[in-house]
């Protein structure tokens, strides 16, 4: 049995039950056998070592993530009480030497059961756990309570241990009080990362991924009157994920746009929409496809920074007017399964946002030199039913499209339209 008890929070202060509970929820991703005992969280990980690629890999991961959660010390031993005692004595590895020789050398107050009798034991000359253990068993059980002898036996592995295991909650919502007041939104990320780490642990334990989560913050009590209680942002992703790095980067992009009205003291994170997500299959051969960040994650992150309308995908519409032939929508929105048919007539590859009125010289349109009309006209006369609701302008289009060649600007898609004061030429697209 392998038991790391992370002593949560700073040693001088006893950690709050909420903080221990938060660490316990995070720890549930490694094993279902997690328990909170006094100022520590204990977990039994012997049966999970293979799933997490061996003891060393598991230890590295637990230590790295526990440090981010504010855990003071992580220790390992074959029994939970021994691991707890080692953590108090600031020793990490309980496998370096045989357990009895390690435990014998520890100060006796490392064992919780010794603490009520600390003065008595000190007065009879005990300093270490080994000293207490060396006392005659009969005398110990007569003069002290049952707990002392029992926990000595349990710590050395001579008696069985029993724990009440933690149960995974159905929903995730965690609070965190920042160590200092934060005035700039991007700095909230440091505290939020801690909450995200807990959420990812909770998601991994439930075999689920999140598609939307909310970060709330509360201003501290010294705020100005008009600042209000606090604020919240909801961050969504297209696919369920529990990848901490992706969620962090996404949140960072959203936070960079937030302006805080007052210093923030508390944070709360809740998982809003949770979907089932199976873990990835381990593969013998390295998979070449998954070694980089996948494209939709990058696009999502770019959309978070540049705005949802900046990253676009296209849907073809069945319309003959070039402006409404294609609709660009945010990349996160789903595309139709089948591509819609599009026109067979020639179309340019680039379109101007607004047709550009061309100068006319000698009755010929001019754009970077005289234009040579090559093919046409392609008459588009449509849209009499269509009207822009906002401005009330008609979108009726009567145009003769021509393919024109310019010596310097290449192949152009220009049209002639009837205006009030005669006909005019417009540049609308480029065959580029």
């Amino acid at each position, binding site marked *: 049995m392998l038991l790391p008890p992370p002593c949560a929070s700073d040693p001088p202060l006893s950690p709050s039950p909420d903080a221990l509970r938060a660490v316990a929820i995070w720890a549930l991703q490694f094993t279902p056998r997690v328990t909170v005992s006094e100022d520590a969280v204990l977990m039994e990980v012997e049966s999970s070592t293979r799933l997490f690629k061996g003891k060393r890999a598991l230890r590295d991961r637990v230590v790295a993530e526990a440090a981010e959660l504010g855990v003071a010390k992580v220790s390992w031993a074959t029994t939970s009480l021994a691991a707890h005692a080692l953590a108090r004595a600031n020793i990490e590895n309980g496998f370096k030497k045989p357990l009895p020789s390690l435990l014998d050398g520890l100060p006796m107050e490392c064992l919780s059961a010794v603490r009520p009798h600390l003065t008595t034991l000190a007065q009879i000359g005990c300093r270490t756990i080994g000293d207490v253990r060396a006392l005659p068993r009969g005398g110990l059980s007569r003069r002290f309570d049952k707990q002392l002898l029992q926990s000595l036996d349990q710590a050395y592995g001579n008696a069985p241990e029993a724990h009440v295991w933690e149960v995974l909650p159905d929903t995730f919502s965690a609070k965190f009080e920042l160590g200092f007041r934060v005035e700039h939104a991007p700095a909230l990320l440091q505290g939020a990362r801690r909450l995200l780490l807990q959420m990812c642990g909770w998601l991994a334990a439930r075999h689920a991924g999140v598609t939307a989560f909310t970060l709330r913050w509360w201003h501290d009590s010294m705020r100005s009157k008009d600042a209000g209680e606090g604020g919240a942002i909801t961050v969504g992703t297209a696919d369920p994920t529990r990848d901490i790095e992706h969620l962090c980067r996404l949140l960072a992009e959203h936070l960079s746009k937030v302006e805080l009205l007052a210093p923030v003291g508390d944070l709360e994170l809740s998982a809003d929409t949770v979907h089932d997500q199976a873990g990835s299959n381990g593969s013998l051969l390295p998979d070449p496809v998954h070694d980089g960040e996948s494209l939709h994650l990058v696009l999502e992150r770019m959309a978070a920074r540049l705005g949802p309308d*900046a*990253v676009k995908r296209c849907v073809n519409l069945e319309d003959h007017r070039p402006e409404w032939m294609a609709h660009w929508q945010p990349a996160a929105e789903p595309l139709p399964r089948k591509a819609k048919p599009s026109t067979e007539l020639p179309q340019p590859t680039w379109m101007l946002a607004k047709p550009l009125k061309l100068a006319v010289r000698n009755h010929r349109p001019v754009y970077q030199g005289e234009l040579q009309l090559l093919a046409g006209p392609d008459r588009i006369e449509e849209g009499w039913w269509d009207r822009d609701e906002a401005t009330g302008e008609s979108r009726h289009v009567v145009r003769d499209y021509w393919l024109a060649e310019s010596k310097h600007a290449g192949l152009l898609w220009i049209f002639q339209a009837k205006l009030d004061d005669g006909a005019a030429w417009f540049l609308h697209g*480029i065959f580029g």
Partner: protein
Amino acid sequence: MQPPLVRESHSVALVGPTSPSQNAEPTIGQPLPACVEAALWHGDQLGGAVAEVLGSGFPSFDAVLPGGGWPCGVLTEVLVSQFSIVELRLLSPVLAKLTQAGRTVVLVGPALAPHPPGLRHDGVDERFLVWVDVDTPRDRLWATEQLVKAGSAGAIVAWLPLVRAEQIRRLQVLAAHCKGPVFLCRPESAARDSSAAPLRVLARIQTDWQITVEVLKRKGPPLEGPLQLLSIPGGLNTIMTPRLRYPSRLVPQVFPQEPAHAVDSVVAAASVRKRSAAEPQS
């Protein structure tokens, strides 16, 4: 058969660096065996493919590219005099091939809006096309860098009008993890500056549906003279007539000038009047 081959290749490898004069004429005496000849790279030859390459769709252009196509995992600079008039005529065959294979092509900050019906005529499937609509140089570079760093796009085409040499070098280092080609479209004026991109081509439009491509930099000797490529935009094939095939023959050498209907200078008007008065007499 085997032992003499090994001995000879050893002798080449040892003698070469010690006496440079023998480098100039390596074939004097005995000719090199075929396997050694194949493994040797001469400085005046075209370099081989370092990574995977994708055919450009123009066989004569592939012939002058190292490895025979657009290289993946490195930067390729496409220099143009004006944006959006020639880039896609050069790149659309490779983009079409990638999108048809289901790989996503990302366009970062093109000068104009892409028009999917036209792209579809070129064979580009618009379902695998992403348009990143950014404007400022900072956002363009940031978006390009994120995509190059992730390296999972089928191809990246980025329009970077303002970019410094060290930023290109940074992109080039990041591009090593990229699976697809990375095209940077830059203005023609950048041809004078040095660049970390291993392949740089300059594209210009010509009449008669041609484009000229100059390879400014490649692994191998510089290419002499521009290359003429026939590139008819997709969709125009259906309306192509023999007369349209050579637009240059349609262009009159001098555009017909309108006769002057009015003369606005007093001196000129007087001379015109004098001339018209003199004409009936002669």
